[in-house]
């Protein structure tokens, strides 16, 4: 509760709303104690006094009644009625919802049918029908407004109750012989109260508006008693001659409803954990770049060259160094593997190349990515956009999530081409069919009008590959493209990629956690751990004799292609959290060879005869080869 209030008060708008609301409620509460004129005493000699005149701060209305007094008394009435309506709707609605959700089956069905019927009405029709039956009057308006809001509560609460009704603690209570009524009161109710509070905080503003509306129509409070709505309704006839009589109650309603809405939003945000972490930020078109250090000079290594790249995630006050000084390069026609556990930074490395790391929270803080010599980090968005897909293309994991669910695959292929070249639809269609054929999708003329959900996982990934090939890129970055697929399909996709590389001279950067895949496809491999490269070299050399203890572990775990899932448990311990790396070797915690020196200071990546390793006590490749 205290945490909740603290969260709420951190939301400045909600705080403002809360303070305003508090003032309004206080004023309404103490209205009887204030030295106000009697709100109902008419004095036709003093009609339509303008505001700020002697003895009438807000002026008088068409019957000479003091507007300030009427305003405060009217506010009191409006708040009371709105709050009462909310309470009634919440209580009855929650009761109905809990009963439907708890008992389920027939009861649930019957009740929810009825609720659906009520929701089929535009709300005011129902309210009008009820007022028509009961006759105009404030109390009847209250009943009408409460009634039309019951279905909303019933439905919300039912949903939550259904989720709770089958949890262990409820089952346990049932087994222990508690009565249904007691279970509902002691086990269910405490758990749905927050939902009721959220629902109330988001609807009470509405209810005040709705009752004010009915009064405005003359169906609510009857003269001389007046709530804000009927004040406005009565003032309407003098709108043109004496507008302030309308403005005064109207602005009051606006203030109340706005304050409640702000407060309600704050309550919802504070209780909704998804918004708490700030997860609902949209990624921008390209990753933010904020390089403080100098840009490394080009070395002329290969077609794509990543130099000392640093990408971080800035979440609130914490900084996660997702990758910290990664250097890689790949030549035309070459396949480079990047391997590591999840969280090692391999995907972030891949996405940083074309500025696709979600930002916020991602920020590229240092290094360079050179395509054919020119730096892409910090290149204008326009330039980056033009290169995406045309020079460097991506294949992602899980094509069900990475293909747009509402467009036909053919249209998505054509769009990939059209983003870079203007071609006619007939041409686009022809090219799309050719592409599907190139990735060996049978019957491409028909498949082109499939939606992604109509295809199998393997076929979808072939579409993903076809999309990457659409503009004949020089480099394909494949981010775990086979992880979601079963073993046979995996092998087919790998064979296809290998083929394409050979026939088209593609450079491939292949991200994986699976040494079996690396062995099959890659010329060179880089092993990543905690955001850094710990070993790099020709695939064969590393497979024959890993030098870094981590590499050895990784290999020992996955002898077979496609059984990557079990590997995680096979290495004792977990990778370190990258916002709090230990000094010295990041792997020390889990390394069987670690010594005091390993935890001392930063360990450099040492190059030697085409290989590199970041370890103080590497295994000697020659010694192992000799064994």
């Amino acid at each position, binding site marked *: 509760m205290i945490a909740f209030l603290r969260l709420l008060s951190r939301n400045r708008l909600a705080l403002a709303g809360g303070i305003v609301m508090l003032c309004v409620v206080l004023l309404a509460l103490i209205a009887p104690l204030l030295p106000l004129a009697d709100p109902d005493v008419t004095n036709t000699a003093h009609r339509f006094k303008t505001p700020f005149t002697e003895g009438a701060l807000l002026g008088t209305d068409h019957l000479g009644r003091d507007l300030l007094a009427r305003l405060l008394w009217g506010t009191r009435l409006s708040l009371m009625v709105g709050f009462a309506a909310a309470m009634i709707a919440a209580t009855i609605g929650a009761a109905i919802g809990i009963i439907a959700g708890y008992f389920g089956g027939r009861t649930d069905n019957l009740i929810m049918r009825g609720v659906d019927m009520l929701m*089929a009405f535009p709300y*005011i029709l129902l309210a009008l029908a009820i007022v028509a039956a009961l006759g105009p009057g404030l109390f009847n308006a209250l009943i009408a407004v409460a009634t039309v809001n019951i279905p909303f509560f019933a439905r919300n609460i039912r949903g939550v109750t259904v989720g709770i009704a089958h949890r262990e603690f409820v089952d346990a209570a049932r087994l222990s012989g508690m009565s249904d009524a007691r279970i509902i009161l002691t086990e269910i109710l405490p758990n749905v109260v927050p939902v009721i509070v959220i629902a109330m905080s988001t609807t009470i*503003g509405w209810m005040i508006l709705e009752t004010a*509306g009915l009064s405005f129509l003359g169906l609510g409070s009857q003269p001389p008693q007046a709530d804000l709505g009927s004040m406005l309704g009565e003032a309407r006839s003098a709108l*043109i001659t004496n507008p302030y009589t309308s403005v005064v109650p109207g602005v009051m*309603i606006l203030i109340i409803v706005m304050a409640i809405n702000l407060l309600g939003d704050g309550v919802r945000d504070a209780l909704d954990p998804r918004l708490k972490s700030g997860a609902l930020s*949209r990624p921008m078109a390209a990753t933010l770049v904020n390089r403080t250090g100098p840009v490394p000079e080009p070395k002329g290594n290969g077609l794509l060259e990543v130099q000392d790249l640093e990408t971080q995630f800035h979440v609130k006050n914490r900084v996660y160094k997702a990758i910290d000084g990664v250097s890689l390069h790949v030549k035309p026609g070459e396949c480079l593997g990047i391997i590591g556990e999840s969280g090692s930074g391999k995907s972030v490395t891949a996405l940083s190349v074309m500025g*696709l790391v979600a930002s916020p929270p991602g920020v590229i803080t240092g290094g360079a990515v050179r395509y054919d010599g020119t730096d892409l980090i910090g290149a204008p968005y326009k330039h980056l956009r033009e290169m*995406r897909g045309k020079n460097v293309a991506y294949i992602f994991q899980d094509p069900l999530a990475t293909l747009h669910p509402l467009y036909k695959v053919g249209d998505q292929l054509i769009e990939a081409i059209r983003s870079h070249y203007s071609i006619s639809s007939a041409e686009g269609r022809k090219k799309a069919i050719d592409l599907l054929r190139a990735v060996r999708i049978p019957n491409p003329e028909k498949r082109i009008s499939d939606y992604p959900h*109509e295809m199998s996982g393997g076929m979808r990934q072939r579409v993903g590959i076809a999309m990457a090939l659409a503009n004949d890129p020089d480099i394909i970055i494949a981010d775990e493209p086979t992880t979601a697929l079963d073993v046979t399909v995996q092998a087919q996709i790998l064979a296809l990629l290998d083929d394409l590389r050979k026939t088209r001279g593609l450079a491939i950067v292949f991200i994986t956690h699976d040494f079996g895949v690396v062995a099959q496809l890659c010329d060179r491999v880089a092993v990543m751990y905690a955001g850094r490269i710990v070993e790099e070299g020709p695939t064969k050399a590393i497979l024959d004799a890993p030098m870094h203890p981590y590499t050895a572990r990784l290999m020992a775990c996955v002898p077979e292609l496609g059984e990557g899932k079990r590997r995680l448990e096979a290495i004792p311990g977990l990778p370190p959290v990258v916002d709090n790396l230990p000094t010295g070797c990041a792997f020390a915690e889990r390394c069987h060879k670690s010594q005091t020196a390993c935890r001392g200071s930063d360990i450099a990546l040492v190059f030697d005869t085409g290989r590199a390793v970041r370890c103080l006590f590497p295994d000697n490749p020659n010694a192992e080869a000799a064994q």
Partner: protein
Amino acid sequence: MAGYILKRLLSAIPVLFGITVIVFLIMALIPGDPATAILGAYATPENVAKLNRDLGLDKPLAQQYFIWLGNILIGDFGTSFALNRPVLDEVLERFNATLILAGTAFVLCSIFGIVAGVVSAANQYGLGDKAITFVVLLGISIPSFFLGMMMILFFAVNLRMFPVSGMWPIYGARDLSALISHLTLPALALAVVATGVIARLTRSAMLEVLRQDYIRTARAKGVPERGVIWRHALKAAMVAIIPVLGIQAGFVLSGAVYIEIVFQWPGVGRMLVDAILKRDILLVQGGVVFVAACYVIFNIAVDVAQSMLDPRIKT
């Protein structure tokens, strides 16, 4: 698709049936003798008895209901006492005016709301986003009847840009330009609240969608940001937006009651309020059933639109 539409239409029958039951039951709540309630306290006993017979009120409740339902099904909603004219004729004429007003407002709030929400999401935390968020907050907090009154005061009385009220000029031609000038203010006033709600929802739906993997795919293949936002993200967000459009249509229809009063628009909402104040029960009953039925049909159209957008929905 035709099969799906038919299926949805058939599924609406029990809902329509339920609506008539609810309306009938509410009317049966009228305390005391309905005929007296309808005719007023000074009615002669003969008149009361005659009305009771006319309404079939001397029969048991269930039987009354089926007589009433049967009459409705052949288009007989009874006769309005206050207007002395068949209820259906009056409702149809008034509904026409409401449809023009609410329909225009609905189109306006859908367009403005979606555009504002998309712009807001695309510039999250930017100046445009903050400005839109503030205006939206104001929009969903202001009572539409108060807004309408202020618009009359400012645009009609002070600036004389539009007529103060009504649907047609008292003198002069009833042509399209006359209609538009009379329609502008009430349609805008009516659209404001729904615009705010739709904009809010669009913003959060867009933010949700923009984090999806397929958006990253679109960016990775080089789709310009405009296309990413308006084609990829908005289309996916529409799946969440369309049902809310259906709900908002109900709110627009509801809000029309206030706006019709404020602008003296000869619509069905004003008719209902008048009928309630005059205790013209049959007119209320007929009007409510008719409008609710139209709303149910409209929501079927919304469902069909949804199924056309999203191929994953089984039709």
